[in-house]
Structures are given as C-alpha cells and as structure tokens.
C-alpha cells in the first residue's frame, strides 16, 4: 500500500476535476464522486497505517518516493515526493477519516444549498492539498500545499459569498496567512541557502552538524511564522474566529481538525531544525502557551457557538505548539490526533444545532437536549473529551502535554520553565472545561426558546457524530502510559520516550477540569451565581475579553492608517511627482516650441538680420583662435 501513497492526494484531485468539468449540475453524483474518491484515499491510508504499524517503517526508516518536479541545473532540484513514516501515516489516517465523515455529514447539512456540487469540489480540492501537504518529502512541496490549503480555506470560508461578512472573512484569512507564508518562505529560502536542499531527510542529515546556532534560530523562527498564521497562534490568530463564516462542515474539517493542525504538523516534520535552535524552541513554546491561554480567556465570554469552538481550537492548537516547543512531538501529535476527533465532533454537533435552530448565538438556544438527543450526547462526549475528563481521549493527550510541560525545566536546563508551563497548562485546562460546559448548559439545558422548531438532524448527519464520539472516547487509549507499544513508540523524534504515568499530574488536571465544569454549572446550570453580576463587576475585563483584546481593531487601524496611508502616498507620488516630472518635461518641450515659434516674426528684414548676426558670431568665434595666433 505504501507504494500507492501518491494516490492518496491524487484521488481527491481527480474528483475535483470531474466535478468541476462534468458533474456540476448533478448534485448527488458530485457528492458521491467526492466521497468515493475520499473513501479510496481513506482505504489506502488505512493500509499504509497498518503497514507502518506492522512493518519496518519507523521514524528513522521512512519510505520515500520522489520524482523530479523542477530543476535548474547546478542550482536547484525540487522533487515532487512522498515521505511515509509513522508521523505522516497517522496524519493521513486522521485527515482522510475526518474528511470522509465530514463529506458524508455534508450530504445532509448542505442539502438545498446553491453550489452544492461546488462545495464538494472544494472539499475534494482541500483534501488533495491537505494530503499532499502531509505526504510531502520536502519544504518546497509542503509550502506549495500549505498555500493551497489556504486557498481552499479561502474558497470555503467565502462559500456564502453573497454575505459581506463571509467575503470579508475569507479575505482576512488569506491575507493573514500570507503574512505567515511570507515568513515561512524566507525561512525556507534560508534553509536552502545554508544547506542547498529542501528535502527533509537530507536536511536532517546536515542540520545537526551546523554550528551557527544564531542563524539557525532565525531560520527556525522564520519558518515558525508559517505555523503561527496557519495554526492561528498569537498574533496572527485573528482570521480563525472570522473563518467561522464558512459552512460548519468546513469549520469542522479545515478550521478545527486538519488544516489548522498543519502548522503543528510542520513543526513536527521539521523538528530537527527547531531542536537545533533552543532559543527558537523556547519562543515557540511561549507563543504556543500564550496563545492557548489567550484564546481560552476570550472563549470564556463569547456568545457565538462556533466562535467559542474556534477560540477553543486556537487554544488547543496553542497547547500542541507548546508541546512541540517543549521538545515533544509525540505529545503534540498525540494531542493533534485526539483533538481532531473530538473537535470535529464538536463542530459537527454545533452544525447540527445550527441546522436545527438557524442561529449561532447560544443565548438564543436552550433546552435542546430534549429535542436533539444524539446531538446533545455526542456533544457532551466531545466536550468531556476536550475538557480532559478521564478516560476520554483528551485526558490522555493533555496529560502527555502537561507531563512534557513539567519536564520543560529539565529539557532546557532552565528550572523555572517547568512550573510556568505546568501552571499555564492547568489554567487552560480549567478555562476549557468552563467554557465548554457553559456552552452545554446554556445551549442544551437552559430554558427552551419559545417558538423553537428544533428537531434532530437526519441520520446522514448523526451517524458521523456517533462514529466520531466513539473515537473521542477511545482514541486516547493508543497513547496512554499504560499502552504497550503505543503512540510514543511510533511518532517520536530521536529516541522513543515511553511516558511514565505521573499520577500527580493526572489528578491535578482532572481536579482542575472538574472545577471548571462545576463553576460553569454554578453559573449557567444552577444559576447560583449571576452571570450578569459577574460581567458588571468585572466590566472592563469582560469588555476586553468580549472584544478579543481589541486585536482586530488594532490591526484594522494599522491597515487603514499605515498600509493605506502609504499606498495613498505612493499614488500621490506617482501621479504628481513621477508623472508630473514626465508630463512637465513634455509640457516644457511643447512650451519651448510654442515660445520659439515667435522668432519667426514674418518680417523678412528680421530674417536677414538673423543671418547677418549669425555670420558675425561665427566669424568672431573663428577669429578668436585664428587671429589670436597671428
């Protein structure tokens, strides 16, 4: 199966082409084409995963297939390649699996929307790009697919292009990501400059022996700018909440489970570089940690169901980035995997809710648990998983990250880092539990809204929910400290570190999560504490949080005043100065002509005089040297 790995991204691409050119008018055919292709990819991925688990393919011994893509003799050789190791195998499985489920779900969710076929075409294109990214064997290729997933994200966020907000949001997403790509590109070029290759394995062979750590740090940080944007880390996170303008399945697939995780994947993939630049690693961890608490705090007070989930995603991504920054790609990737399942589940659940009530404001919902049993229960499972309640998936992966955080001091040789990251991680865990259960209490258990015609979604939507909730519950077991030959033995950097169970941390995280749930219950379930009163007491903080720390406003101001200001200045300069000089030159010549024509007075005696004067002048000019010599 591994030899067919190249087919994994190609199948959805074929589906895309077929839909665009052939079956746009036939909605169901388009959907089925998409799903069939995806199923094909899924099966191959599954095969790859089993082969990897069984066979000799390990992180140190990957399978690489490549073809020449672009070559400038003696200067650059860029491959189109496939690199299969446990890292990409896991990722392949996650992406194909969730994509498949989301597509099935979309059959129901998108029913009756205009552009139904197009939607599936875009989903296929996205899958192609994402899978291409996953299997890439070099930076250049990963960069290309990196941008392509951005494109798909752009297209899908703007799927409801008739909405102004959607068309603004997709523009914002793309441009913000461009900033990230800019950094990524610079970093990539630096790598090429230093080592002359883009290939991951070749780079892995040479980077550790490179001595200029300062330069490596710069390179690593530049490359990290890419993930900052793509994985919505502070300060380039602003696009992710707005991206929720897209259809909900898109949010589930792209903006929760897969694409936003690409940043994390890239960090894991290129870890050899980051590992060689310790300073960069610390900065990455700090940014990840900060983003995670930053986003979680905003999530506390949001009203829009998808936005809460979006900030949660951002927060969890920050978790993963932090984990990798702290040196454990195992923890990061593990959390990525489990998170993909339960966050996709949550988004699809949210989609199911929105499908039923046609609003996204949680305070306009309420009491849905009676009408939408499957949705409610799967949603709660997802939330528990996210909050990290034993023994759901999230518990194990979060535990792994907290464990890594606790070891940070040791890892970097700076003892203070351990407690800092541990406390940070625990705080996030607390907030996560709080806002998720705030959401649940308000949406599913609060008072029923009058005139609500909510009803359970069709099976085509609920079945994926159920499948995902199964994974949300059990997927954590592949990587518990008690699992033999588990996740840590597959995906690792350097040597596999089998985690030893740290009961202290397990207990602490559980307590913190339960505390969050309890507080949410107090405020929104039992109403023992008035939410309004809290909001009024901490009105400043509430306002800041609700307005997302005013980051958007700052950016808008910067764009309007600085970017457009410079642009206006340039335009002015172009019209008035550059053009002005050129036109002035032309006008000057014309004016000279217009003046000089009056030499021609029409009086012939003047003409004669001119001849005479000219003769005299010439004679004098000649006379000076000649007579001077006599």
């Amino acid at each position: 199966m591994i030899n067919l790995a190249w087919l994994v991204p190609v199948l959805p691409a074929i589906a895309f082409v077929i839909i665009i050119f052939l079956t746009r008018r036939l909605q169901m055919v388009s959907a089925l084409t998409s799903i069939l292709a995806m199923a094909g990819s899924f099966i191959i991925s599954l095969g790859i995963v089993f082969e990897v688990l069984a066979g000799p393919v390990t992180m140190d011994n990957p399978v690489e297939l490549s073809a020449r893509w672009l070559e400038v003799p003696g200067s650059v050789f860029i491959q189109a390649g496939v690199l299969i190791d446990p890292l990409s195998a896991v990722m392949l499985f996650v992406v194909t699996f969730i994509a498949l489920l989301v597509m099935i779900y979309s059959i129901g969710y998108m029913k009756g929307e205009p552009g139904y076929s197009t939607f599936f075409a875009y989903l296929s294109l996205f899958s192609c790009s994402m899978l291409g990214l996953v299997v890439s064997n070099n930076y250049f290729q990963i960069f290309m697919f990196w941008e392509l997933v951005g494109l798909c994200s752009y297209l899908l966020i703007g799927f409801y292009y008739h909405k102004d907000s959607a068309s603004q949001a997709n523009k914002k997403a793309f441009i913000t990501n461009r900033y990230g790509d800019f950094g990524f590109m610079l970093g990539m070029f630096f790598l090429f400059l230093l080592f002359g290759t883009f290939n991951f394995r070749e780079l892995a062979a040479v980077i550790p022996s490179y001595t200029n750590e300062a330069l490596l740090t710069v390179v690593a940080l530049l490359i990290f700018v890419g993930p900052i944007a793509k994985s919505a880390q502070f300060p380039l996170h602003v696009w992710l909440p707005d991206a929720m303008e897209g259809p909900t399945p898109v949010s589930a697939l792209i903006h929760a489970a897969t694409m936003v995780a690409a940043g994390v994947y890239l960090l894991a993939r290129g870890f050899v570089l980051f590992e060689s630049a310790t300073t960069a690693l610390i900065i990455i961890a700090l940014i990840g940690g900060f983003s995670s608490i930053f986003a979680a705090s905003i999530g506390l007070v949001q009203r829009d169901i998808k936005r809460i989930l979006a900030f949660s995603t951002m927060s969890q991504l920050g978790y993963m980035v932090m984990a990798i920054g702290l040196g454990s790609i195992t923890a990061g990737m593990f959390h990525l995997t489990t998170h993909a399942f339960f966050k996709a589940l949550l988004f699809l659940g949210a989609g199911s809710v929105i499908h039923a009530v046609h609003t996204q404001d949680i305070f306009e919902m309420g009491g849905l648990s009676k009408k939408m049993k499957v949705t409610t229960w799967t949603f709660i499972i997802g939330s528990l998983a996210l909050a990290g309640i034993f023994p759901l998936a999230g518990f194990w992966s979060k535990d792994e990250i907290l464990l890594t955080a606790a070891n940070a001091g040791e890892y970097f040789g700076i003892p203070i880092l351990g407690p800092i990251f541990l406390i940070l991680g625990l705080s996030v865990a607390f907030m996560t539990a709080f806002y998720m259960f705030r959401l649940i209490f308000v949406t599913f258990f609060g008072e029923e809204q009058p005139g609500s015609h909510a009803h359970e979604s069709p099976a085509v939507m609920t079945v994926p929910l159920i499948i995902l909730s199964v994974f949300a519950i059990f997927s954590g077991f592949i990587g518990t400290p008690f699992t033999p030959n588990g996740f840590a033995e597959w995906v690792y950097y350097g040597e596999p570190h089998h985690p030893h169970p740290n009961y202290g941390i397990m207990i602490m995280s559980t307590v913190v999560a339960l505390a969050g749930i309890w507080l949410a219950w107090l405020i929104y379930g039992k109403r023992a504490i008035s939410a309004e009163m809290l909001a009024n007491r901490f009105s400043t903080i509430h306002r800041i949080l609700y307005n997302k720390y005013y980051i958007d406003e700052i950016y808008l101001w910067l764009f309007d005043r600085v970017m457009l200001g410079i642009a206006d200045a340039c335009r002015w300069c172009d019209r008035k100065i550059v053009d002005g000089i050129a036109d002035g030159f032309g006008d000057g010549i014309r004016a000279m002509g217009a003046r000089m024509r009056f030499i021609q007075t029409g009086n012939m005696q003047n003409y004669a005089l001119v001849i005479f004067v000219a003769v005299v002048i010439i004679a004098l000019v000649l006379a000076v040297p000649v007579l001077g010599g006599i």
Partner: protein
Amino acid sequence: MITLNHYLILAAILFCIGFYGAIAKKNAVAVLMGIELMLNSVNINLVAFNRFLSPGEMTGQIFAIMVIVVAAAEVAVGLALVLNIYRQRLTTDVNDLDWLKW
C-alpha cells in the same frame, strides 16, 4: 599705392552698406537695391582678385559678368513680384508683409 586690400575693404564696406539698406529700408524696391549693392561689392572683389592675383586669366571678370547678368534677372523677377504685391495691398512696405509668420 592702391593694393588689393583697398579694394577688398571697399567691397566690404559696400557690402555692409548694401546689407544695411536691405535690412533697414522699408520700401521693397529699396531693399532690392540694397541687395544690388551687395552683389556689386562681390563684383568688385572678383575683379580685384583677378587683377591682383592672376592677371593673366579672365576668371574673375567672367564671374563678375555672370553675376551682373543673373542679378539683372533676379531684380526683374523681384520687381515684378513687388509690383504684384503692390497691386494687392497698395503698399510696398516690407513691414506689412508679415501675413506669413509663426
């Protein structure tokens, strides 16, 4: 003793007088006369050169005769044109001949 230089200076003065007449006189006929003077100064030059430099040859004289003949033709045409313009505009003042300008 009158040398070549005297003749040359005479011719030069004559040329200048003629030129002055040509550019200062208002009457077109007078202007043409000024030009005649210029041509005559040339004739003096030619003849004087011939006399002083190569007295055996006739080149200068022939040249001068040619000039005289041609000058006559020129003036004939010129006067005709001046006459024509006088018929049209009832003036021969060259300052008024400036319809063509700029």
